[in-house]
């Protein structure tokens, strides 16, 4: 197990390194945008560029970049936006918004998704199951931005329940009712898809477990249906469902670009889009690595969590 984890993590960093290198080269091949005249910051940015060796050969630049990242965790400074501010600091400042919105949506989605999934698995092939399954197909297919439009139109404009955009931190504190309320539209739009996905997954897993032999045995030895379902079926189904939930939790760092854009949430996604818009390559580079890392890490954690949740699954063994 330990060996397997070490190997996976090593491979992850190798992949990350390759992707980082490719991105760096591709970005450096683009023409470097001039710095907008913004007073004293210009000199700071120019000094930073000099330090990073912007007029030296590509390989030297990459070496300097790696050195500053690995040794000082310095991803450069903002050149076109957040002038002369440290890229990583800005990213950390934006992260809480993205994480909070997605955390709320997952906390809303998990109980609902599991509930609907268990319900429709228990009622398999009855009309309740058909209704849930039909709704799941609809909700899983419709893109999340369509929900966002519906939620925005219905709840923000017509009914006026929620404000249009997320409250700024100047007005309310982060974990307050006002902030939660202003995040609700985004949370709702994000949740529908997750609920549907989780419902489908839970239903499929649980209905498979429910028909297996050990369930028959459990009933034969005298357990009620509820006991058997709770103690045997659910626990076994969770072996597959839990890693998915864990994966969702890692994924909340990445967030959803389009939802952040629609509800103008000042999160990481918006930062990324802005950096593309104004061609700020330092931000672009850092965020690319950030997104890639999250993708890779969630893959590893999902795989490893299988082994922790169910010791019968031996990691790294050849199939």
């Amino acid at each position: 197990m330990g060996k397997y984890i070490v190997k996976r993590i090593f491979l992850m960093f190798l992949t990350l390194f390759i992707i980082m290198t490719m991105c760096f080269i591709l970005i450096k091949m683009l023409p470097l945008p001039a710095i907008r005249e913004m007073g004293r910051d210009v000199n700071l940015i120019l000094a930073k560029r000099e330090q990073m060796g912007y007029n030296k050969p590509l390989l030297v630049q990459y070496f300097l970049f790696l050195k500053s990242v690995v040794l000082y965790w310095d991803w450069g400074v903002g050149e076109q936006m957040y002038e002369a501010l440290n890229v990583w600091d800005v990213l950390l400042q934006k992260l809480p918004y993205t994480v909070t919105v997605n955390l709320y949506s997952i906390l809303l989605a998990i109980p609902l998704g599991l509930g609907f999934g268990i319900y429709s698995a228990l009622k398999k092939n009855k009309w309740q199951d058909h209704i849930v399954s039909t709704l799941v197909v609809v909700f899983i297919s419709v893109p999340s931005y369509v929900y966002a439009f519906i939620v925005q139109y219905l709840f923000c404009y017509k009914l006026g329940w929620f404000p249009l955009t997320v409250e700024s931190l100047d007005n309310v504190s982060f974990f307050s009712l006002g902030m939660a309320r202003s995040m609700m539209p985004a949370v709702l739009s994000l949740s529908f898809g997750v609920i549907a996905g989780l419902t489908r997954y839970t239903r499929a897993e649980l209905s498979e477990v429910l028909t297996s032999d050990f369930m028959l045995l459990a009933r034969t030895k005298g357990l009620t249906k509820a006991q058997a379902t709770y103690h045997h079926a659910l626990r076994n189904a969770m072996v597959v469902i839990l890693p998915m939930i864990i994966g969702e939790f890692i994924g909340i760092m990445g967030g959803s670009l389009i939802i952040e854009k629609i509800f103008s949430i000042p999160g990481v996604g918006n930062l990324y889009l802005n950096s593309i818009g104004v061609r700020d390559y330092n931000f672009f580079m850092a965020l690319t690595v950030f997104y890639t890392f999250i993708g890779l890490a969630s893959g590893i954690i999902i795989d490893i969590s299988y082994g922790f949740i169910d010791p019968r699954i031996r990691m790294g063994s050849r199939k």
Partner: protein
Amino acid sequence: MNNEMKIPSFPKEKFGFANKNERIHDVKFETKPIGYFKDAWLRFRKNKSAVVATVLIIFLLLFALIVPFVSNYTVSFRDGYYKTVLPKNATLAPLGIWNGAKVQRETQAGYDYYRSIGVETGRPAVLEVKSQSVDANGIRYYSLVVDSYIKVGYTYVNLTEDEFRRLQDYQDSTGIQVIYPLQKTYRTNYVMGNMGANFWYLLQDDGATTNGLAVLDENGNFIPNYLTTANKQQADYTSLRLQGDNGGEDGNTWFVYGQRNQSGYKARVDYYEYFKYKNNFEPVFLFGTNIYGQDIFTCLAAGARLSFLLAISVSLINFFIGGLYGAIEGYYGGAIDITMERISDVLASVPFIVVATLFQMHLADKVGVLVSLLFAFVLTGWVSMAARVRMQFYRFKRQEYILSARTLGANDRRLIFKHIYPNAIGTIITAAVLTIPGVIFTESILSYLNIVHFETSSLTSIGTMLANGQGYLSTFPHIILFPAMFISILMISFNLFGNGLRDAFNPSLRGADE
């Protein structure tokens, strides 16, 4: 030995050849053979939701293909006056549904303004007064059903001498009044009413920021406020005249229908009729127009056509690249497999949005937006296809029939394409079909986020249309409604279709929702 039969001896002559005079062979099958695809089709046909989804997909595909050719409008068509008009269907409009009208709450001034538009032309902008109410401050409010097409009213147009002549000829030949008299209060500094072109009646206040409140006569009618002249043929106008324009009481005061300026004539036209004169068809926008005055119906079809084109190309290219790559990986295995798997792992780990952005930055200026988007989709898109094919190859390559074919001397190519592929083809086709909705969805997101710029005069995409409408969601939801509905129906249909296809090709997987 006791039960041994006693065989009597037969004379030689009794023996003869059976079927001596007829050919013996298998009777040809009366029924048609059921092959793999026929078998799949038989199963697919039983899946009702998949069949409905197929019909829907074909319908949407035909919509995207045909509409741009038969529509009156094009994507580059923009009308400066019919911006954000509401959806209207000529057949259903008389029934009061889908008629391009919506309920507006207006004060007395607004009511006057909209009511006045129909008086001259006989085509009322206010279809119905739903209710009136007086609020606490004593202000009267009207709830009106206003036709968004008619409420544009009149506009000033600058015509050359020739155009003015032709417009008059058109009026003479059709008997339709297009040009209406200019008014006394004619000023260009009006903020409201198409630079004042709609104020043909006497106003209580004719300042630049007038509210359009009318001076009414004792019967509650508008008092016309036309510019008059003693010269009947002023500005060379010899065509139709308004009713009541008969020279006035002294027989010598005629309304003025045009005013000479540097380039020709300035005239006031009824925009509805003028549109018909210019374009030779009625202004009817089935799905309404957006903020640029583009026809949403046509744009949607054009955008969908673009999406389908992109998605189908991506799907085909991925099918070939992924199929070949996966086949080599899966068939040869070992070191080749591990190396190739590493490469595709790296490619699959790059977030797609990064790939798309980089391709746009590097290639959009050189090879065009669409081609660079296609490259981006192809660069990482084939990986999942390759993984599927690889799985299928691992499943089949150790089976006995492959061994026997190899023993009979079949080479690698023959084994791959003749013996393994046909077995895996169902899974591969399903995967290829299911890349189509994914590509359409991703493309709409990229163009919505403005990472891909489709904003040229003749190209549009569903994402661009959604982005254009987002700021107007509260006031004009129809701009977003139709593209959003289109993509939702498309996604649902493709999901059901894909499920049906998978069940049909792989009956053993039926019901496993994955």
